[in-house]
């Protein structure tokens, strides 16, 4: 067999590495690894590639930025600020924008990429939550994600504070005031962070090293762990024909996934390029250098810090002075409580759900949000809570643009922050149950064909056809009462004696929560009215993939529904 020069060269290279690394088997496995395909699986990639772009553009910026608060007088290209005193950090940012070719573009790409990074994390996190991809074995990845979200918030805050402009300086002032208000340690924390009185002359260099070294290093490590876990555990897949808990269906890394993910990276870079060309962001020359005596109307942080800002605005004036000490509830409660509660609840949720449902099996096929109405409802409640605070953070902009009085908006937010999530939960849950009813109807009666037939008796009936295979697999998967979601256990045994674990207060709570979570519309019941009790069609105990059952197939192929009772000819009609 004659080989081309290229083939020989490639083989030579391969042999070189394999001789030293025994890489052939691992590399082959990697290249053949399958990736399930769904557009929602690309949301995490937006975050990943935005991060890569942040690293690239950030490195460029570090070549020109001066992280120093020493004062200089500006004499550069931007004429309205000529003769103005400013820090070197601010002056060097003006320099990057107006004196370095491509500098403004790189600055803008960097800032848009930061916004896209955080937005993608939120959207990705919501996708994971609503499809329950955080379930075992992926709880670790969920926790890593929450840590990365927090690090991203800090990284962004520190990053846009580096130019030391009026807007971000105001944000630093607020950060300092919040820090100062924390009981016992607040003043010490503030003086340690700022090296003395605010603003001091060391905060920008300190934020700089945190922003370019410490947090990126942590993020790189966490991203690597996040991706490694995803590789090792294999990606989840959406319910569909042939997709079970024990397989992965998709296309291999090489060449398909590599090409698609590479293409998406270029898409992200292109979108960022378009944004940076046509949408001006963070025009620091318009803000002017930071001065603690000046401020602009409409002082907001970047959007991902918006809920914190809104929490500060929404809080009533509540302070407690006792025994020579001050508890500034009006400051440290909004700073710590709303997001603290949200993030903690999010971190605990996978384990809480396991406790409520008793489901400790592995899950590799995603849920449909409608099949878990309580979870979806709670997720929407959390989104509403976050959203109300976020909108309140922009209340003066909204007041000006929509011509609603300022205090009215704050009062609306004060009510909506409590009422909104409750309403959102209830509405979402009802919508999910309605969609479940629609699915149950489809399964029981088939798809309407629009063909009307008259029976010999004179009756008119509409012919239906069974749902096609692909759709059937999706409809059937993981319905309430289906084997994948076991109940917490029978509440009573045959003689009516309650199960021991349900007798304690915690046990009763668990039982109650389990009932709420299991609410759904079972198939075959035909009278679904929202009172399903989670014990479904009497399927066998869940056949999850557990240790010691190597190779055992879970009986989770699509269970056919009861045959059509609708049309007389349930088969192909007008197909």
């Amino acid at each position, binding site marked *: 067999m004659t080989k081309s020069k290229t083939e020989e060269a490639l083989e030579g290279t391969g042999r070189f590495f394999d001789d030293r690394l025994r890489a052939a088997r691992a590399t082959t496995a990697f290249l053949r690894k399958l990736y399930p395909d*769904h557009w929602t*699986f690309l949301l995490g990639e937006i975050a990943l590639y935005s991060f890569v772009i942040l690293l690239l553009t950030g490195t460029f910026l570090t070549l020109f930025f001066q992280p120093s608060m020493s004062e200089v007088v500006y004499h550069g290209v931007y004429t309205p*600020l000529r*003769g103005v005193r400013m820090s070197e950090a601010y002056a060097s940012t003006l320099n990057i924008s107006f004196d370095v070719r491509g500098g403004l573009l790189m600055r803008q790409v960097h800032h848009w990429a930061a916004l896209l990074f955080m937005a993608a994390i939120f959207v990705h996190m919501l996708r994971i939550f609503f499809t329950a991809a955080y379930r075992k074995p992926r709880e670790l990845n969920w926790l890593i994600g929450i840590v990365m979200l927090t690090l991203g918030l800090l990284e962004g805050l520190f990053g846009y504070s580096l130019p030391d402009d009026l807007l971000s300086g105001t944000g630093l002032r607020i950060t300092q005031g919040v820090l100062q208000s924390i009981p016992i340690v607040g003043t010490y924390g503030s003086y340690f962070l700022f090296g003395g009185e605010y603003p001091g002359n060391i905060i920008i260099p300190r934020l700089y090293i945190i922003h370019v070294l410490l947090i990126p290093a942590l993020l790189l490590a966490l991203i690597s762990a996040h991706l490694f876990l995803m590789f090792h555990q294999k990606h989840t897949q959406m319910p569909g024909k042939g997709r079970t808990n024990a397989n992965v269906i998709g296309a291999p890394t090489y060449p398909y996934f590599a090409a698609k993910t590479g293409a*998406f990276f270029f898409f992200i870079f292109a979108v960022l390029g378009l944004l940076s060309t046509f949408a001006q*962001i963070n*025009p620091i020359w318009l803000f002017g250098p930071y001065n603690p005596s000046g401020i602009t*109307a409409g002082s907001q942080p*970047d959007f991902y810090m918006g809920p914190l800002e809104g929490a500060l605005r929404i809080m009533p004036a509540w302070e407690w002075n006792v025994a020579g000490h001050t508890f500034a509830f009006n400051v440290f409660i909004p700073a710590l409580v709303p997001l603290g509660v949200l993030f903690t609840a999010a971190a605990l949720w996978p384990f809480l759900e396991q406790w409520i449902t008793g489901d400790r099996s592995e899950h590799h096929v995603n849920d449909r949000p409608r099949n878990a109405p309580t979870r979806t409802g709670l997720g929407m409640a959390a989104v509403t809570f976050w959203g109300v605070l976020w909108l309140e953070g922009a209340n003066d902009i909204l007041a*000006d643009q929509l011509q609603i009085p300022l205090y009215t908006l704050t009062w609306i937010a004060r009510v909506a922050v409590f009422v909104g999530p409750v309403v959102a939960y209830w509405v979402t849950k009802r919508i999910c149950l309605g969609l479940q009813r629609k699915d149950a109807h489809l399964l029981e009666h088939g798809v309407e064909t629009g063909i009307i037939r008259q029976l010999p008796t004179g009756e008119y009936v509409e012919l239906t056809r069974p749902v096609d295979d692909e759709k059937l697999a999706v409809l059937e998967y993981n319905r309430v009462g289906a084997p994948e979601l076991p109940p917490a256990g029978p509440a009573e045994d045959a003689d009516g004696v309650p199960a021991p674990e349900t007798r304690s207060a915690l046990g009763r709570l668990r039982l109650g929560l389990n009932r709420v979570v299991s609410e759904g519309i079972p198939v075959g019941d035909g009278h679904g009215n929202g009172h399903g009790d989670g014990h479904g069609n009497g399927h066998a105990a869940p056949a999850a993939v557990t240790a010691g059952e190597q190779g055992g197939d879970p009986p989770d192929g699509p269970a056919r529904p009861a045959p059509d009772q609708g049309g007389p000819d349930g088969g192909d009609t007008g197909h």
Partner: protein
Amino acid sequence: MSGKKPRRRRRQRAAGYAVLASGLLVIGVAYAAVTGAGSAATAATASGPSAADIAQGKAIFADTCSSCHGMNAQGTSAGPSLVGAGAAAVDFQMSTGRMPGKDFDAEMPRKPVTFTTAQIHQVADYVSSLGGGPAIPSPAMVSSAGADVALGQQLFITNCSQCHNFAGAGGALTYGKYAPALTHSTPTQMYEAMLTGPEAMPVFSDTTVTPAQKRAIIAYVTKVRSEPNPGGFSLGRIGPVTEGLVAFLGGIAALVFAAIWITMKRRET
């Protein structure tokens, strides 16, 4: 060949039009010459308000303003006294169209102007004659030539941007009031606003913010608002709120469409 008669009639018809046109032309030119000379005569004496102007102003005032401000501008329950308000205040309110007031909301908005500049000056002269007050600044007082723009930036950020925003894009106040955007304000209007403190705006008198300092502020504002946005569309120059919206509705939305396209499965039979 009917010949001569039509030719004659045509010539007569054309001649008639020619006479008419030339007559109009003569009258028009004569009129312009006469009135032009007339206004030149008035301008020559306009170093201070003439009695004629004040009288004109009083007439307009009586028709338009007295219903709220009183026949002698002493004020009524519907409108404040204008005695001592000064020509600058009148010029500001009327040249921005805020006055005559129409919808009595939380604040008088800028509206299309109802009167000509000459008429506004006449009303201003009249009001000024009642009790004095700040005068309309001259063009030299509001020109940006040689102004200290750096000082203007510092003064603007310290005393103006907290209401009007860093780029003069405006902002919300309480109870439905707002600090308007400065995009349409002329240098004269800016000076007058600082001097007279219209509605909720504080007063920045010439003894506190000197005329030169006011010029500096005006120079800064006019410079910044007219400069191009090097980074693309400005998104309103109101800061991170619009940027966040664009990140979601522009960036994430576009990438979601891209993701859908990439993973779309083509149906094949």
